[in-house]
């Protein structure tokens, strides 16, 4: 997708920015409980035959109602406005993004009073992923016997959405994983719902939660167990609804420059899993943007003449620029190169360099480890120990690290050691279960601060406080 056109497109799109992360609940069946009981005010209904009666009931129960529709039915769904909906959510698959660029401005122009939100429905259920594959004939197999523990995370998707519509809050959803043939249907737990909410909250994204139909039915029927579960889930939604932290931006010292915004790209998933904070840029950003804060820039796009000059500028400033699948003639190639290995040539520029990787990234795991090594210990914004199932997202305010959001995909209490760049006077910790804030013992050395999260179950937040005279 052309990134420049995408930005223009998003000027036409209005999204909710009232909080740093908002949870919408999609209701598909059964009587709708009052909004005060559900504890979430934004309800999403599908555009189908029962929409009108459901919308009427939902408004009566105190909800702000949204209608969600596949992108190709957007025009007819605008009729829903007559029911008093707050907005029309367009579910747009990756393959429809190009069509969206053409059609949405027309749709917006034809319906100027309707608030359109664009939904990425291609998220994945966040979870700690195993290696077992259960096949149709009930034979079980194991793939990649030496693979490291893995997690399914939506961080890369959110990063791409943030680039696609800068200044807007990404909105995504996912379908719960289906059981394999012969497998007992897993029961979604409070932890599963909480993890989904926590992930979106930690990444500062909006999210549509789809409660399982049996849970919706049980909530409708006032089942005590279902409500106990839901109240657990609510504590997570509340945890991320604090507008006091609005305005912070994700911290990153690694830039990833892309031509195509493909959220299935495993390289970005691996960068996320290795806790390498990165920002997605388009080639145009590289040309005109300020990149002082980035230590390493990975270029997956084919550089044009302007970008090539910019790459040399960056390397001259002491940065490491990695050109992946470098096939072409570039100005730095007139310099002497150092052969790093069979795949890679290095062109030194003082303390900076341009690394040309002659092929696509065939092993994203190894590539992510390489990037951490290239950043060097001195430039590692954050490092975790015992954190293979944990993702940390740092946020900064006015250039200073202020908050760290943690998500543990194992859904069980974990003691995680953390090292963060910077010397901080104090470190405070809160979780949805243990309200703000517990002071953590921190040690400081060589410009870094270290502390231990005592019991990261699903979500946690750390507040970093500078010395008063800093």
């Amino acid at each position, binding site marked *: 997708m052309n990134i420049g056109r995408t930005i223009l497109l998003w000027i036409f799109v209005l999204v909710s920015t009232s909080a740093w992360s908002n949870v919408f609940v999609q209701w598909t069946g059964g009587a709708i409980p009052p909004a005060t009981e559900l504890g979430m005010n934004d309800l999403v209904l599908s555009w189908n035959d029962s929409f009108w009666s459901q919308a009427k009931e939902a408004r009566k129960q105190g909800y702000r109602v949204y209608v969600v529709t596949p992108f190709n039915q957007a025009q007819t769904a605008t009729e829903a406005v007559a029911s008093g909906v707050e907005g029309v959510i367009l579910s747009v698959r990756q393959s429809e993004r190009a069509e969206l660029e053409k059609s949405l401005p027309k749709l917006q122009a034809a319906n100027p009073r309707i608030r359109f939100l664009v939904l990425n429905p291609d998220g994945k259920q966040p979870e700690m992923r195993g*290696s*077992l594959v259960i096949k149709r004939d009930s034979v079980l*197999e194991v793939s990649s*016997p*030496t693979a490291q*523990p893995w997690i399914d995370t939506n961080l890369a998707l959110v990063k791409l959405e943030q680039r696609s519509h800068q200044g807007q809050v990404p909105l995504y959803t996912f379908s719960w994983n289906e059981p394999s043939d012969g497998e007992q249907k897993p029961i979604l737990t409070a932890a599963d719902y909480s993890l989904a909410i926590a992930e979106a909250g930690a990444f500062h994204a909006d999210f549509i939660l789809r409660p399982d139909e*049996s849970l919706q039915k049980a909530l409708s029927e006032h089942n005590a167990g279902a409500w106990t579960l839901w109240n657990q889930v609510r504590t997570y939604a509340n945890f991320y609804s604090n507008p006091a932290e609005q305005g912070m931006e994700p911290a990153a010292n690694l830039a990833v420059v892309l031509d195509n915004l493909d959220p299935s790209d495993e390289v970005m998933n691996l960068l996320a899993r290795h806790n390498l904070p990165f920002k997605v840029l388009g080639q145009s950003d590289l040309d005109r943007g300020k990149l002082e804060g980035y230590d390493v820039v990975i270029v997956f796009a084919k550089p044009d003449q302007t970008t090539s000059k910019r790459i040399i500028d960056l390397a001259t400033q002491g940065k490491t620029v990695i050109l992946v699948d470098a096939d072409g003639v570039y100005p730095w190639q007139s310099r002497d190169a150092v052969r790093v290995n069979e795949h890679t040539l290095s062109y030194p520029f003082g303390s900076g360099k341009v690394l040309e990787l002659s092929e696509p990234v065939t092993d994203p795991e190894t*590539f992510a480890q390489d990037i951490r090594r290239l950043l060097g210990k001195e430039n590692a914004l954050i490092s975790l120990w015992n954190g293979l199932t944990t993702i940390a997202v740092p946020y900064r305010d006015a250039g200073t690290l202020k908050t760290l959001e943690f998500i543990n995909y194992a859904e069980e209490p974990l003691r995680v050691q953390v090292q963060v760049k910077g010397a901080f006077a104090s470190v405070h910790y809160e979780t949805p279960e243990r309200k703000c804030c517990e002071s953590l013992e921190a040690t400081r050395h060589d410009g870094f601060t270290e502390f231990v999260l005592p019991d990261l179950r699903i979500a946690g937040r750390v507040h970093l406080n500078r010395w008063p005279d800093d």
Partner: protein
Amino acid sequence: MRCDRRRAAALLGLFLSFASIVESSENPVLVYKKKYIMGTIFEIAAYDQSPQHAAKAIENAFQEIVRLDDLLSNYKPDSALSKLNRSAHFQTQRVPSDLYRVIDQAVQFSKLSGGEFDISVAPLVNLWKAALRGDGTPSLAQQKEVRSCVGYEKIALTPPDRISFRSPCLQLDLGAIGKGYAVDRAAEVLHSMGIHDALLVAGGSTILGMGTPPNQAGWWVHLRDPSNKIDPQVLLKDESVSTSEQTAPSLLGNGSAGHIIDPETGQPLKTEFAVSAVTKTASASDGLSTTLLLLGPTKGKALVKDMTGVSAVWISHQAQPEIVNGGPQILLGKGSQTPVSLGKNQ
């Protein structure tokens, strides 16, 4: 933590009270669960008429692994292993029976491999782990100093439960065998609760097949294939397979760091092979796969041929497998419904 678990269990119980699930059925139902323990993901898939009973048995099996992690971890400062690593230098220490058994088995593998497999390699592993994290390649002097701490023959075992180190700086790391031991103990828990058909997986690299899936001859397991051309498979029935492979070489750097250290050289092992070993127990397959990776196919095949009921395969990126089929047949069958067997000892 205990409080959270009890609350989670109570919530699950409440939810089950309204969720429509089948209490039991004539046909066995597959129940699958996973849990993060020992720094990796353990998975268990078990068949039983009662999914509730299978779920309970799996939870108990996981709890057994958690218990063992509290003994065998070198990350947890209060584990029995950590205490041993701090206090057994020239002093005999009494240790829990599980820790003694794992170390005893590991020493047997060390003897079997002439020292190629060595659980005392921990100081070297830590040195090279730091290199993997960006500390730079350790100097020869650093390597020499650390190598003087290594050597399984410096571990003194006195049955039934006493251990001392005949070195001032020896440290043990059970990473190459601890997960296999945990899988064996978890399988015992499942058996004790009447679960006889289950697949247990530790981090994807050690797998134990108990019994068989319904109407099947065993559990088909696809093995690691660096060439992506061979698709080696093995059918497990009360057997285990483990795979070992060195960390992939850097794409952007020229370092040679890797997580498997050759005690002989004191440096990361240089090998292009992935090795899978099939044995009766997970402890044995776990220890043997690392041993065979360190030995390489020539010495390794000779070792396996001397063992009873053991199979092994070495596969390189060049797709030239070296197989010893002394136990369950390892078959090669990419894209084939009926994989082709290369036969025994090829």
